[in-house]
């Protein structure tokens, strides 16, 4: 029985629209005919803390959580957060790394430096690392808040879902007046 399950990790900071993005991703996977499960942690984590969501899909998925060293694709909504989850990535993982930096408290008050040379370290270790300035690209599309959809556009190139499905789900996910802007954000992310 061929039941290959793919695992995606979305990581970042509370308020970046990560859970919304993983919801849209799951709806699209479902529409494309996959079995899909996702997990996330609410609660304390939301007050400016780390937020992650695991998304797993295939013909039959059991666990909503991926094990260590098994993530196929990570989208990191914040640059340094990528580093927190390297133990989850498989050797051949693809990385999509947003260049946005959100300083944690210790960096904010000058006690610790923001980690340096992140991209270099990642590129040494992994074959496919895509840097993307999602915030700037979202601004181009009309609203910085659409950075999460820009990132979905970027990851769509690595997933087995056709554009018509993404479009349909994005239309379903936003109020009328935000649809055009989000579709544009998705397209910009896809071609970035």
């Amino acid at each position, binding site marked *: *029985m061929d*039941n290959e*399950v793919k695992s995606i990790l979305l990581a970042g*900071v*509370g308020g970046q629209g990560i859970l919304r993005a993983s*919801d849209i991703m*799951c*709806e699209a996977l*479902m529409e494309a005919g996959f*079995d*899909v*499960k*996702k*997990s*996330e*942690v*609410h*609660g*304390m*984590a*939301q*007050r*400016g*803390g*780390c937020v992650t969501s695991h998304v797993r899909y295939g013909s039959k*998925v*059991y*666990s*909503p*959580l*991926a*094990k*260590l*060293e*098994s993530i196929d694709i990570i989208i990191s909504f914040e640059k*340094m*957060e990528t*580093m*927190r*989850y*390297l*133990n989850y*990535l498989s050797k051949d993982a693809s990385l999509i790394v947003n260049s946005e930096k959100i*300083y*944690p*408290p*210790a*960096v*904010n*008050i*000058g006690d*610790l430096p*923001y*980690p340096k040379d992140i991209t270099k370290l990642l590129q040494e*270790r992994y074959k496919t690392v895509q840097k993307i300035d999602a915030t700037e690209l979202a601004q181009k599309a009309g609203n910085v808040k659409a950075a999460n959809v820009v990132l979905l556009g970027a990851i769509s190139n690595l997933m087995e879902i056709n554009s018509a499905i993404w479009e349909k789900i994005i239309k379903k996910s936003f109020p009328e007046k935000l649809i055009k802007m989000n579709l544009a954000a998705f397209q910009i992310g896809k071609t970035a």
Partner: protein
Amino acid sequence: MKVLMSGNEAIARGVYEAGVRFAAAYPGTPSTEILEEFSKYEGVYAEWSPNEKVAVEVAIGAALAGEKALAVMKHVGVNVAADPIFTVSYTGTNSALVIVSADDPSLHSSQNEQDNRNYAKFAKIPMLEPADAQEAKEFVKLAFEISEKFDTPVFLRSTTRVSHSKSLVSLEEPLPHQDKTRISYNPEKFVMVPAYARLRRVEVEKRLVNLKEYAEIFSENKMEINNPDVGIITAGMPYNYAKDVFPDYSYLKLGMVYPLPEKLIREFVAKVKKIYVVEELDPFLEEQIKAMGIKVIGKEIFPYTNEFDPGIIENAINKSTKPSTASVQNIPSRPPNLCPGCPHRGLFYVLGKLKVFVAGDIGCYTLSFMKPLEGLHSCICMGASIGMAHGMSKALKEKGKGKIVGVIGDSTFIHSGITPLLNMAYNKSNALIIICDNSTTAMTGMQEHPATGYTLLGEKTKQLDLKVLVSALGIDNIRVIDPYDLKETRNAIKEELAKDGPSVIISQRPCVLFKRSKLKTERALKIDPDKCTGCKVCLGLGCPPISWQKIEKKEGSKREGIAMIDETLCNGCGLCMQVCKFGSIS
């Protein structure tokens, strides 16, 4: 039709599909969304009760009156509600009563990691445990059926990972609600005085025997015989983790974790060679199975603490302890923090600077235990602050005079702070209690409570007046302050601590995220880089938008850096303006 649902959404849906229209709860992660979702369905009655004990009692009352009812809480909520739960087990439910306990392995957002399967055994109440959203929906329906059939309350146990994971769920046509309510009298069954309770006690044991029989044929206790070399006995989410890594082993998946189907377990054991019991937290199944005289492998290889994942099970069974090749990088941590403009910040900034012990409680304000505020020194359970402050001040006598403060949120005060405050008046306490009244239950996501003046269903209602209540409990020294005013806050605390007898300060200011807040957030503040001396005093507020950066030292200047405010985050509360001694913030 299939839709993507979280476990919590699916439980709400299942309750609705079962034709049940009555539910009561107190919020608590990871259970909160169940009632929020349920309350959105047409024609339901759903309420936030002041605490879990009241929620269960409300549900018992509805069931006694013939209405099927649901009560929902997080794991520690069951401790609060344990008193009625243990005795409704004796009386039975008349109609049907299901109690959802949402446990939190790994303590994602809780103060302990208790395994509430133990309550099922302890209270002699059957318990079902779903493994994903589809099962969550089906199992809650089965729970109502079992409750009605056996005249027993039924537990449905979820965990954070079931409640907050999403997966595909097939929806069904909801059953219509049937009104079977009536007033019926049955003192032998519902007046639990010793004489009647002794009789009911016997019924409970008979019911357990019947439930054990039922467990043998219960459709959700499922055997999957594949490879006979290894058999895994498991329940709930760990089943999915195990299947993920060992799809070819044999499984006995228990949908009912109490009471256990002994014959079915023996049948399974006879079919496989080596048996593992895979369960998070306590060896609940393992101990019972071992007591049947069956040899199984359990907690000698699986951890007692924290939730599992597929890798933990794989490594334990394969005995591999290979260290992860890509170790986690050492990067700065990102702890949760009070929001910019949070009304708790000013209060705890002041408390952290005074030489007092602050007996804390549970809510957003608990976060102020951290640096730099360090304004809270204990946290045990909801409501504990007041009793503990009183106990400390009594024990310390003169040594504690003017040094003991208890702090408690408004929702927490209503949940379980009223009785201990009454005790302080009654037993002549000397401590100071501060109620952090932010007009909402912020920690769990802005739920209504009796002092907000609105119900879960969005109706306006009688609004509790905290000041009047505190006065009625016998507290004479009461004042209301605005925690955005640091000077007033400091003075009020100092003055009340100097007084004899108990005092209460109500620190009043709505949560910045509060939807009905009339106060618009103020314009963002700015720091004048020429006036800032880089003294870092404003950093003591631990406010997210305030940062500090090194600058090049100029000739003759001692200034090493300056503070800055991120305008996109600042809510303009003005605390930093008050602490800045150089007038550089405006």
